[in-house]
């Protein structure tokens, strides 16, 4: 914890804020990719402390927010089947599918369990040989190694009753999609430090060159984020196009090779639908055919589920940084974390949830009566 406190140091943070202010000569729009960074920005109120010339917009880096509706409906269909233990990272339980969520499935008798690691799900499968154990393998490059490892683990242990429902997404293609949009406003990026811990940052160099945007690999503590912003501002002000690393305590240019090897062994790149954004070429991973027997979509024949999204919220525009949560008429009134209308409000990493939880500017009606 001492180590962590250093990255929350008040003097260091204020020093960086002063440095950022001194370098600024004009307004800049910077996107932080990762939902974890969005939450840190709101939780520590960094947006209030930064000079008004810096506009932070929030990217699509919340894995829960971008998991497509049909995958959630497939998860609900599988989890409701008798003889199934459905395991998931906790955040996914609250995401509504078409009319239900995993909480409802659990309340109706489904065996839905939160796990902290997919390897725990493999363990549950070994302990329950008469049940089918499914893990909801969602996430970015950060969760991909552990999700892939669970498949290798199940295979090497001969665990036949384990399978994964995969919705893996990759950051670089999403950045391509954002930057090639005619509505793009983003001038510089804070790349997601934990994605880069796994993948390195060489993938971002062609993106920076092609779209002429500086990209700075950034961590998650207040001092990390301010340092990422400072480096981005320096590059922008000097009109320099480069990828820089402000998270050197974890990230190298080439990343974590053993983790990448595990990913590449189990997954192959595929086109992927992002909730709120749409289909992005090459932006996902799916199981390679040699691991097809671990694919829950085939094991449970749910491939045909294709629901329609209903048009109530602007999560897609928020995920691309075009709109802010406050711009949504439903924010804080019709849409709250306990009754989310959109995925950005559902996840603890979602931008709307971050605004709702921490932002002091909107007046949120509160009319609860209390009884303990």
């Amino acid at each position, binding site marked *: 914890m001492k180590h962590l406190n250093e990255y929350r140091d008040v003097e260091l943070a204020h020093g960086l804020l002063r440095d950022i202010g001194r370098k600024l000569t004009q307004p800049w729009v910077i996107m932080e990719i990762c939902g974890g960074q969005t939450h840190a920005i709101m939780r520590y109120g960094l947006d209030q402390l930064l000079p008004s010339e810096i506009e932070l917009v929030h990217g699509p880096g919340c894995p829960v927010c971008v998991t497509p509706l049909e995958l959630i409906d497939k998860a609900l269909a599988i989890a409701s089947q008798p003889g199934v233990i459905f395991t998931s990272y906790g955040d996914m339980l609250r995401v509504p599918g078409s009319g239900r969520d995993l909480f409802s499935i659990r309340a109706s008798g489904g065996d839905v369990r939160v796990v902290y690691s997919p390897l725990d799900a493999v363990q549950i499968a070994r302990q329950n040989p008469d049940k089918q154990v499914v893990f909801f393998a969602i996430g970015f490059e950060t969760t991909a190694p552990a999700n892939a490892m669970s498949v290798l683990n199940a295979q090497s242990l001969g665990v036949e009753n384990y399978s994964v429902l995969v919705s893996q997404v990759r950051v670089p293609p999403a950045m391509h999609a954002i930057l090639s949009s005619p509505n793009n406003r983003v001038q510089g990026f804070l790349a997601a430090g934990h994605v880069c811990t796994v993948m390195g940052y060489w993938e971002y160099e062609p993106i920076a060159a092609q779209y002429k945007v500086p990209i700075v690999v950034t961590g998650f503590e207040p001092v990390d984020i301010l340092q990422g912003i400072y480096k981005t501002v320096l590059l922008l002000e000097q009109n320099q196009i480069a990828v820089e690393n402000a998270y050197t305590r974890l990230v190298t240019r080439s990343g974590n090779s053993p983790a990448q090897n595990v990913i590449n062994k189990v997954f192959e790149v595929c086109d992927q639908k992002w909730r709120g954004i749409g289909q992005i070429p090459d932006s996902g991973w799916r199981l390679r055919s040699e691991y097809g027997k671990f694919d829950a979509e085939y094991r449970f024949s749910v491939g045909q589920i294709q629901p329609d999204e209903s*048009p109530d919220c602007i999560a897609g525009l928020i995920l691309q940084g075009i709109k802010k949560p406050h711009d949504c008429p439903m924010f804080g009134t019709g849409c709250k974390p306990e009754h989310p209308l959109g995925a950005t409000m559902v996840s603890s990493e979602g931008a709307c949830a971050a605004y709702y939880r921490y932002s002091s500017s909107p007046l949120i009606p509160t009319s*609860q009566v209390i009884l303990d």
Partner: protein
Amino acid sequence: MMAEQPLPDLEGSVCPVPLKHVEQVVMGHGSGGNMTHELVKRAFLGPFDNPALRLGNDAAIVDPENGAQLAISTDSHVVWPLFFPGGDIGRLAVCGTVNDIAMMGAEPRYLTAGFILEEGLEISLLEKVIRSMQLAAEEAGVHIVAGDTKVVQRGKADGMYINTSGVGLIEAGVHIGGQHALPGDKIILSGPIGDHGIAVLAARGELGFDTTLVSDVAPLNRLVRAILQASPNIHAMRDPTRGGLATTLNEIARQSNANITIYENTIPVRPAVSAACEMLGFDPLYVANEGKLVVFVAAPDAERVLAVMRASEYGSLAEIIGEVTSSPSSRVLMRTALGSTRVVDTLTGEMLPRIC
């Protein structure tokens, strides 16, 4: 190769129908946060409506005809595992009701205990729980004067559930309640937050981490008595149990129609709690406590009350953590260590660990 096609048209795109969970009880309804409050409001407050209930305090104050004021409260305990570092379901069951009564400024006197036992429960384990209740009752100075026992089929309960109810006496001149916090009041917290929630979570063994943390479960009525003796200007007290400190402060802000400002770097949190919360993606402000209280006291008396609390074994690490301000928006704001201000909201539903 990366294709460079523009994004699809996004006008009106992405949201599913909202889920309000109004047809079926889900775990979030028991979180102590917003979902609990909404269920209580929707299901109970209308049919049971009366002035004592409407106030929404930890215990109801009733005024029998002889003039004495009584505080009455009830609390059910479903904790699992039954035994955890620092406590067990029996100690929790006694302290929970003792504390709810004490928070009204009342002296808890008599408890009842109702047991729902699962077929197959070992009697020796039951006796261990009863012994623990006896010790907690002695520590608090209360008597368990009536009880009830029911047995349900194996698989219908987690070993045992315990309900306790209690009554306490309120001395003349004591007017304490969540609705009485006043602008200018200082807020004192009796010690570090989150110990109970993290200790119980670790004891479940599902998280793959060990900790030396112990639950803070304790009867707070002696501490309350000392506080009341130190100042006649105590306006509100509450023990931040389910939903944590954040939810408790929000309840009082709404009841008193006042703003609350707290200061991040004054709130005591043990390093082990901070570390576990960092790992799990929890905020200590929302983690349960079972032996802490917050006191709202007129500012001139704050230091005196703080000193008395620190002299007690139940409040030795007490701190002044904030104050009540007059803005009528009924919100809790936190001044962060960095100098920014953010909203501290009520717990929403079930606390979920984050994904990464």
